């Protein structure tokens, strides 16, 4: 593999038996796993191209145990990789050979449902969907809906700042969490925020969200819940050209309409999805938009009419409007099954995750077509069109020599193009190990050093999830050094008043 992980500490590996025993003293019974066979379940996450069994797995079930495990590891200089459900698509939970894998799977309890304050207080191992299910009887739900929501944990959602189809209108995880209990690498337990709208002081919750398990281990989360919209309807609109579909997206937004979801698929993705789920997708179009409007019925009906008019004006060639829940779900079935559908037409695929300004869509897709020619690999595109988040699926066969390397190079070029077009390397999957070495495409060394200084404030030893996010890990002492710029003792020649 092209990714280099931090060198294993042989002294730590040599003490494995002693470390396992010490962890067993903290987490008794089956909470410590050290057999090679049982640890295999943890050797990878959703980025399955990379595998590495951990030194040992520990599954605590109380905050105190998490604290003691981290305190022990900090004192002994042992690396720790936190893990939720292991659905990360960027390798955020890839274990280290000399590291403890700290699984939060036993933190499965919802601690409090508070309808009056419209919050749920939950343990991190609860799945995203389970939160919505727990409050559904009162008409509430938790808005961010990553496509893995049936399996992914809310703790992992916070670590990755997960998005989903509806985040254009309802925001990402960071816009929907209010507080947490977090254990630092030192073992210190901190409570941040609560049931109020805002925390006092620096927005630590904001920085923890999306920190990819490098700052601390979350043991409790307070999330905001919303009332479910009264109704939702979808339009499925086909276009002969990608440009026209892109224009349609821009005009909908320009008209002041923020759909609950607005998804685009290109021809290869449409064909793969239709072959898989038979949703009735038009096969003779180059781009398909699924636009969902949600809210009160009277509003949805009105907006459907407005969106249909915009689509017509943009030259849509087909337009279907859902008239029932069953039909709406059918429109979505193909999109939601796009990844497995592509999995059927290709032995392997890489799922990319760049974001571009919406207006750059046609040139981004043109570039992807060129790159597809260059690398001689197919590519199907699904796209959260409303917020510019592109998911090219690069098709390859791992059994053919050289193909995975070509696929990875293709993917890296797509992400470079996203940055070139004014976008970013990752919209919702995270940097992890997958995009780690591309970070300099977007950030200077000064930018990255500033981010790492934040890491130092939480974990000065750099023991928590090392090898992720940052291409080069600097020592904190080195980052804290102040370079005094000699000779510049006076303020420069600028206007004074």
């Amino acid at each position: 593999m092209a990714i280099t992980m931090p060198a294993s500490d042989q002294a730590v590996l040599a003490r494995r038996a002693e470390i396992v025993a010490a962890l067993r003293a903290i987490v008794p019974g089956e909470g410590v796993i050290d057999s090679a066979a049982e640890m295999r379940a943890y050797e990878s996450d959703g980025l399955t191209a990379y595998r590495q069994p951990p030194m040992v797995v520990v599954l605590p079930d109380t905050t105190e145990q998490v604290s003691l495990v981290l305190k022990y590891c900090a004192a002994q200089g042992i690396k720790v990789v936190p893990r939720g459900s292991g659905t990360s698509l960027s390798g955020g939970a890839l274990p280290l050979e000399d590291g403890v894998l700290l699984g939060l799977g036993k933190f499965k309890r919802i601690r409090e449902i508070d309808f009056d304050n419209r919050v749920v207080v939950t343990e991190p191992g609860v799945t995203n969907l389970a939160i919505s299910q727990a409050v559904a009887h009162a008409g509430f739900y938790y808005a961010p809906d990553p496509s893995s929501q049936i399996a992914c944990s809310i703790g992992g959602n916070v670590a990755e700042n997960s998005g989903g189809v509806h985040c254009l209108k309802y925001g990402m995880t960071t816009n929907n969490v209010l507080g947490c209990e977090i254990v630092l690498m030192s073992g210190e337990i901190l409570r941040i925020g609560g049931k109020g709208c805002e925390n006092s002081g620096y927005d630590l919750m904001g920085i923890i969200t999306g920190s990819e398990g490098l700052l601390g281990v979350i043991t409790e989360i307070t999330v905001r819940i919303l009332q479910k919209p009264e109704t939702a309807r979808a339009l499925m609109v086909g276009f002969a050209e990608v440009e026209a579909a892109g224009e349609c997206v821009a005009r909908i937004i320009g008209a002041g309409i923020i759909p609950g979801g607005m998804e685009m698929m290109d021809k290869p993705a449409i064909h793969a999805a239709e072959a898989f789920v038979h949703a009735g997708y038009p096969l003779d179009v180059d781009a398909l938009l699924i636009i969902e409007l949600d809210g009160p019925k009277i509003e949805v009906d009105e907006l459907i009419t407005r969106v249909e008019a915009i689509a017509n004006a943009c030259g849509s060639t087909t337009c279907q409007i859902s008239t029932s829940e069953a039909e709406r779900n059918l429109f979505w079935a193909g999109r939601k099954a796009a990844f497995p559908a592509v999995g059927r037409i290709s032995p392997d695929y890489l799922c990319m995750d760049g974001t571009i300004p919406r207006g750059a869509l046609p040139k981004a897709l043109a570039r992807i077509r060129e790159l597809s020619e260059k690398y001689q690999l197919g590519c199907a595109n699904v796209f959260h069109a409303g917020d510019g988040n592109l998911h090219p699926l690069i098709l390859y066969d791992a059994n053919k020599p050289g193909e995975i390397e070509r696929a990875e190079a293709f993917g890296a070029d797509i992400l470079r193009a996203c940055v070139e077009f004014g976008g970013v390397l990752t919209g919702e999957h995270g940097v992890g190990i997958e995009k780690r070495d591309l970070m300099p495409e977007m950030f200077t060394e000064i930018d990255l050093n500033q981010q790492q200084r934040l890491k130092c404030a939480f974990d000065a030893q750099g023991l928590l999830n090392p090898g992720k996010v940052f291409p080069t890990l600097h020592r904190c002492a080195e980052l804290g050094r102040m370079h005094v710029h000699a000779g510049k003792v006076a303020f420069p020649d600028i206007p004074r008043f």
Partner: protein
Amino acid sequence: MIFAGNFATAFPVDTLKVRDAKDVEEVVRAAIANEQPLEIIGHGSKRSIGHAMATNAVLDVSALNAVTSYEPNELIITLQAGAPLADVLSLIDAKNQQFAFEPMNTAPLLGTPALGTIGGMIACGLAGPRRIKAGGARDHLLGAHAVSGFGDSFKTGGKVVKNVTGYDLCKLLAGSWGTLSVMTEVTLKVMPKPEAERTLLLRGLDDAVANRAMTAALGSPYDVSAAAHLPYQAFRARTEGLGDIAGQGEGVTALRLEGITASASHRAGSLRELLAPFGTAAVIEDDASSALWAAIRDVLPFAADGALGAWPVWRIVCPPASGAALGAQLARETGGDVIYDWGGGLIWAALPPTSDAHAPSVRQRAAAFGGHATLIRATEDVRRGVEVFHPQASGIAALSERVRAGFDPKSILNRGRLTRGATA
């Protein structure tokens, strides 16, 4: 040589008006070399919030006032940090867009003339009534270029709405009161303005009942975008700007619905039915509605030119359903006035002047309800004696200090603004 000799006494305040990010870097580097802290200002509209800063040098970013780019169809705008907020609001208003978090205009409350700059809006992070639905400044800041206390320009975030590339330092910059970095350019999310708005007004509810009505409304499927309660006492100080809702000798509970016209009207009708047990709601529309919410956003009842203009004002954030219990207790114990926004989750409290602005009792009560309190308006004398910002648990305070030092190890930027006695 400006910085020769004893800075603290020998020279008057030196204001350095920077022209670009390079100037900011040079000023900060010179300040580091001289160990001379800087106060960072735009228009200075919120200078009276926080503690006096240990500095006699002012870094003025108001000349960094350009609109770098505005793309209405992308729903983003990129601005230099010193851009005047009033101009920016007109610019996006012309495209029928807005900052959805309704940034507060602190001028009436603080008795200052200016609305301030974009940088100030973000650094102070004071969001208005729609905070409960749309989030705060932190939720709308997509990217920033800034100069750290190392004297280095860095960028964070991007110019797209969906981005998880690297740590989201924007979240820290928003609400940092200029203590982490000097923002030079920012990219913000803009949102379409709603086509119509309707506000239901319930009259004569006491605080506790009003809180229950707001909770019922916010827990309904009608997508309430603002919920506030003005007890009748709050009108005694100043009724200007509140139109005819004041002066009827009754408290007013207000609930806002926004969207396309048909939807806002329809939901107003449904919500009116839902709230029937609390009384028969009157409905005001569009301009009358938006004027009321601007008055609530800017806390006009406690304005500096009103009868309570000399009273200290607290901003208390707490779990929304606890608002009335906390607010009513504070009002009763101190003889002060309160108004509630955010469905009870934000309490503005104007309390009779004392040497400590009732700080111990405000802090203790707020904390007991899971809230925190900031002393937004008080004389310099009072601020010398009490913490303006809510003191934090020791672990959080220590972590926050490590975070701050990671941006500004020599404490060059706005030294002492957040913590009393940290000015040495």
